[in-house]
């Protein structure tokens, strides 16, 4: 047995009991760990762009105050996560899930505060949901996405009514909600594809290694 075989990584497997003794929980942790930087960068985009846009052109003082407060809280939380990742310290799952829920809640809150439709703040859902979809499992991503879509739909009703909403606004809302689904859906498809691909490649690599090891053992035995 060569050293490389001993230290080789265990391959992920969707069934939870792969051919090389896979533990699905470890795989999930590994996936979250790999996707966490994407969430952190997405949140920095939200913080920097959100702060810049709020300070640049805010119509209402109270609205600006609340927005800045929300953004600063997000920045502090993200700074903590960024430091923990850089120090390679273990981060509890609930913190990552909770922070992501806060992201969605913050964007929804700012939209509720501005009470306009269509609002450009909507676009901040996109990087946030994309980051979630490549980090969390499909089921968890679906929960966040459905939450965001329902939340966005509900908070859009009031401004659309105020505008005396017609077909144009209803169509815009429908398209916005559809696209809110599409980005995490595509992210989820890619996440699953990559997981399968990684599994196949690791399995193929391990089979190849075992064949090599068997060949070496047989050869050695034959020579002896």
């Amino acid at each position, binding site marked *: 047995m060569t050293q490389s075989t001993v230290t080789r990584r265990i391959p992920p497997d969707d069934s939870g009991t792969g051919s090389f003794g896979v533990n699905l929980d470890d795989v999930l942790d590994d996936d979250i760990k790999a996707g966490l930087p994407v969430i952190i960068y997405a949140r920095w985009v939200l913080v920097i762009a959100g702060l810049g846009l709020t300070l640049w052109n805010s119509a209402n003082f109270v609205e600006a105050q609340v927005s800045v407060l929300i953004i600063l809280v997000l920045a502090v939380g993200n700074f903590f996560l960024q430091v923990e990742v850089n120090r390679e310290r273990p981060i509890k799952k609930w913190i990552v899930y909770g922070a992501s829920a806060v992201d969605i809640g913050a964007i929804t809150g700012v939209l509720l505060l501005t009470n306009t439709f269509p609002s*450009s703040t909507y676009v901040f859902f996109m*990087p946030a949901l994309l980051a979630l979809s490549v980090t969390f499992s499909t089921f968890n991503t679906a929960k966040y996405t459905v939450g965001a879509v329902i939340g966005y739909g509900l908070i859009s009703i009031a401004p659309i009514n105020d505008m005396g909403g017609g077909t144009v606004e209803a169509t815009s809302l429908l398209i916005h909600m559809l696209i809110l689904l599409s*980005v995490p859906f595509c992210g989820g498809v890619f996440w699953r594809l*990559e997981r399968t691909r990684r599994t196949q490649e690791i399995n193929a690599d391990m089979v190849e290694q075992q064949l090599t090891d068997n060949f070496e053992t047989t050869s050695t035995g034959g020579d002896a």
Partner: protein
Amino acid sequence: MTAQAINTNAEFLRRESAEDVFYGQVVINWARWFVIAAGVILVMTLTSTPAELTVGIIPIVGLMVVNFYLHGRRLAQNPANRGLIAISSMLDLALITTVIAIGPASAEAGLGSQFYVAYFPVIAAFGFVMPRRMTVVYTLVAMIAYAVTTLVVNTQILSGSDVSWIDFEALVTRLIGMAAVGGLASFFWWVQRNRRRAATS
């Protein structure tokens, strides 16, 4: 010996890149289905005459044909190559930009068009599949196309020395969103590539 090592490495990179396209192109197909669905909703609800419906639906049917062909090839394990994927993705951008430029009516064109959201899934999908340089170019093309279209259609945004700051802010916010989605998708593509290499090394 060194030349052989370089050739082996180049072959590995070429194969890896081809596999990225082989496995990932279904994400682009799915993103295009969402764009098609959004286009159908737009045309069906915002057109009022058979002539408008005809003009509106023809490009969407064309995109559907393209996607049936590409998705069908993928399902038949005979996926398209990188060139074809890149061309079809540029076609997506062209169609979205055209819808934004023309709109079902003048009020729903340019900045008033909410169809700009269709850029997001196609940019994300492209970033997941293609190498970083190509994603950067694709995202920039989308951003420039949208900015130019909007500035041409909505001349009030930059009218001489007068700037409509509210409209300008909306444009900038949307462009930031597009850049963020492209950047994050490409970053995750890089993360996944490194994970695969680490797992099999």
